[in-house]
């Protein structure tokens, strides 16, 4: 049986995990794709951001969009997903009333 674990990564650990140079990760933070949990002067990240950074990289590379565009795309995709879900739920509720 597998268990739950959650950890944090330092900036260098994150760079290593996602195979990106420090400047790129800083840029990804600056456009707001991921947010560090600050620890004094050092940045720390929730390990879950790895998945988000990987996804951001795929969009950056495959679709040829800059990091600002990636940030916008991710935000809009998230919004579309939640609107779709809400729409589906409202439809279901509406159906129960007809």
């Amino acid at each position, binding site marked *: 049986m597998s*268990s739950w674990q959650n950890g944090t990564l330092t900036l260098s650990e994150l760079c290593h995990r996602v195979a990106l140079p420090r400047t790129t990760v800083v840029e990804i933070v600056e456009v707001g794709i991921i947010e560090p949990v600050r620890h004094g002067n050092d940045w720390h990240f929730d390990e879950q951001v790895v998945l988000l950074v990987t996804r951001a990289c795929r*969009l950056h*590379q495959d679709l040829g969009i800059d990091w600002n565009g990636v940030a916008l795309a991710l935000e809009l*995709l998230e919004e579309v997903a939640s609107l779709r879900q809400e729409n589906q739920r409202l439809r279901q509720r509406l159906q129960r009333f007809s």
Partner: protein
Amino acid sequence: MDFKDYYQILGVEPNADDKAVKAAYRRLARKYHPDVSKDDNAEARFKEVAEAYQVLKDSAKRAEYDQLRQYRASGHGTGGGFEPPPGWRPSAGGDAATGHGDFSDFFENLFGAGAQGFSWNAGAAGRHRGEDLEVELPLFLEDTVSDTSKQIRFALPQYDARGRRLADREKTLNVKIPAGTGDNERIRLKGQGAPGLDDAPAGDLYLRVRLVPHPLFDVDGHDLIITVPVAPWEAALGAKVDLPTLTGRLSLTVPAHSQSGRRLRLKGKGLPTKGGAGDLYAVLKVVMPEGGDESADALWRQLAEQADFNPRADWEH
């Protein structure tokens, strides 16, 4: 192997210039990118499009491909499978280009496996930790009430010693889901993602929880909504209704003179959370009996004659 018409895949003419090829690729990539599209075939389509672009964007590879295409057009391999001309040796391969790793046999045979990088995660030198994976975990509302164990099945990527992607392997895991797990929550299973290369650690597996639609309950955040059908006289006179909840039945008091659509709150009977629970809303729905009962109609008629009620009073000015 099957011949791939890369021009057709990108929807461009064989004489299309680099700009047109790039524009076609970008358009299709946006449409079928697995991170963007919810389409079931999106990933397969995207791989095809990426493979086509990998060849057509590179003038040397494109020239070689055009040669093969000519060779095929002159009658070779149009019937069954396609075989390159005898003595064919790719020359344009080898430039560890970016790709998603599992290109077709056609591509590998013509341009060599070395022509493709094998995955984003392992693209950079000196890093061979396995990729993190994300899998959707459908969960019944009832599963969130107490700790449950779920069996999940997912496709685990496999790589050979040189880091080339092989066919996925199906993997089964038993996972403990704690009570109060919510919609869209991520559960991380350390080391259960794609295997690492050269004894490097495996990636992690993330389960993204998706609550499955329930036949009775609708979800609104941590709250649940149940539609309660009531007879017109129950709405008028009040009633006690035996109400199903996620954890068992309880008695709901319908107050007299309730309108259809009235929401009655049952505190703490909604979805469990890590710290407590949401509420359950019982929404009344007045339901008319089927017609055809003459004595019932007589009673309605009596009510109609005596009641001083205009439901459309708002329309009168």
